[in-house]
């Protein structure tokens, strides 16, 4: 769809639908935020997260109504059978920040510290107890992330991270940040790999959206064995298999038979 040159009418059509989406997005946020701010602090973190996730649920429905974007999720693991752990997903869009809140709840995500200072929106974010990074102090960022991440793990929350660090176009790759893998190794927490192709329907940093079905695969947990870089290599292999796609199952590298 987006590979072909779009006609003016197509741009008008899809653009209008995107406009409708953002209209509903902002209006619903303005209506819902005060509810979250009022009731949120009185609820447990779990209930608070669930409350916020209902807005995410509405946004996904609204996205489907306005832009014709739906999602098909394939589970290679039964999430109810495992303890909350670290979720590492690829990053192509703004879509996954919302969708993963639905799959993994309650969760801790990583945000820039400055976002918490925004009136209303920032206060709401504070209620979500995110892991914050101070962009002005990059050298301390790694350490701060590990400390806060470990606290979140100890509180039994899912940790949703994007090792690519930035939104990447489908088919392209970005070097992975070692932080999430360090957290997995240090806290001995398994990693659930998630692969999706949201960027094809909701391209990053663009207004326009295209109808389609986003395919999302939730892979089997990877054990935090060896050093952080070992976990990262394993993750890259598994993500490569999952993105190669179709309905093929992602494989974790088999035990070698000629060692020991």
């Amino acid at each position, binding site marked *: 769809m987006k590979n072909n040159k779009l006609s003016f009418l197509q741009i008008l059509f899809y653009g209008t639908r995107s406009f409708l989406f953002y209209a509903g997005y902002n209006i619903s946020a303005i209506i819902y935020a005060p509810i979250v701010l009022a009731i949120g602090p009185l609820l447990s973190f779990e209930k608070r997260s669930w409350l916020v996730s209902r807005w995410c649920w509405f946004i996904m429905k609204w996205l489907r109504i306005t832009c014709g974007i739906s999602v098909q999720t394939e589970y290679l693991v039964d999430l109810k059978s495992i303890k909350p752990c670290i979720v590492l997903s690829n990053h192509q869009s703004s879509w996954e920040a919302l969708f993963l809140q639905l799959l993994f709840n309650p969760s801790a995500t990583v945000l820039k510290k400055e976002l918490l200072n925004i009136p209303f929106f920032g206060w709401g974010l504070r209620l979500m107890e995110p892991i914050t990074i101070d962009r002005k102090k990059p050298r301390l960022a790694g350490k701060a992330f590990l400390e806060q991440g470990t606290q979140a793990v100890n509180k039994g929350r899912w940790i949703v991270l994007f090792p690519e660090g930035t939104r990447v176009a489908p088919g392209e790759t970005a070097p992975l940040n070692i932080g999430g893998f360090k957290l997995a190794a240090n806290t*001995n927490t398994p990693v659930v790999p998630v692969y999706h192709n949201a960027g094809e329907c909701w391209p990053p940093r663009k207004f326009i959206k295209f109808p389609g079905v986003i395919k999302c695969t939730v892979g089997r947990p990877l054990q935090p064995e060896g*050093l952080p870089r070992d976990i990262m290599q394993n993750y890259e292999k598994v993500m490569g298999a999952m993105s190669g796609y179709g309905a093929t199952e992602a494989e974790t590298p088999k035990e070698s038979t000629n060692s020991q």
Partner: protein
Amino acid sequence: MQKIVILDRDGVINFDSEAYVKSAEEWIPIPGSIEAIAQLKKAGFKVFIATNQSGIGRGYYGLEELNAMHQKCSDLLAEYQVSLDGIYFCPHLPDAQCRCRKPAPGMIESIAQEHDLDVTQAYFVGDSKRDLDAGLAAGAKPVLVLTGNGQKTVSQIDSDIPVFDDLSAFVSFVLR
């Protein structure tokens, strides 16, 4: 995942010396290192040593002394009922341009070939830049320890390379 660890000797397993470690008496294990090797072996790892010993080429000591040092190490490990899978050393002088003197990867490659192992699955633990360079050149996974020359080396390396206080700390982490 294959479980393979290749260790530099001086500065990782035993205390190093600028005057070279020339005899079994001078070969003194760093506290915790023998036990760490034993833990690796018990966890199913193959453990090798790959060490530069140009002291032989320079005439400071001979093979007899080298064997005595290694016998001492093996005896200490025998107390834990384990033994090393191989000790590889390079006796050549620096200007001999051999394939085995680290930072050349020859010893690591020999270990992989002779024991039919996948070198990309091997950790290579050292205290000097030449250890890490040898590890990288061979395609293994270099790890730096801060014992021996480690403190001096840490400023010369990429932040990519994991750093541990000593062999014991590395093993504790890997076996966690």
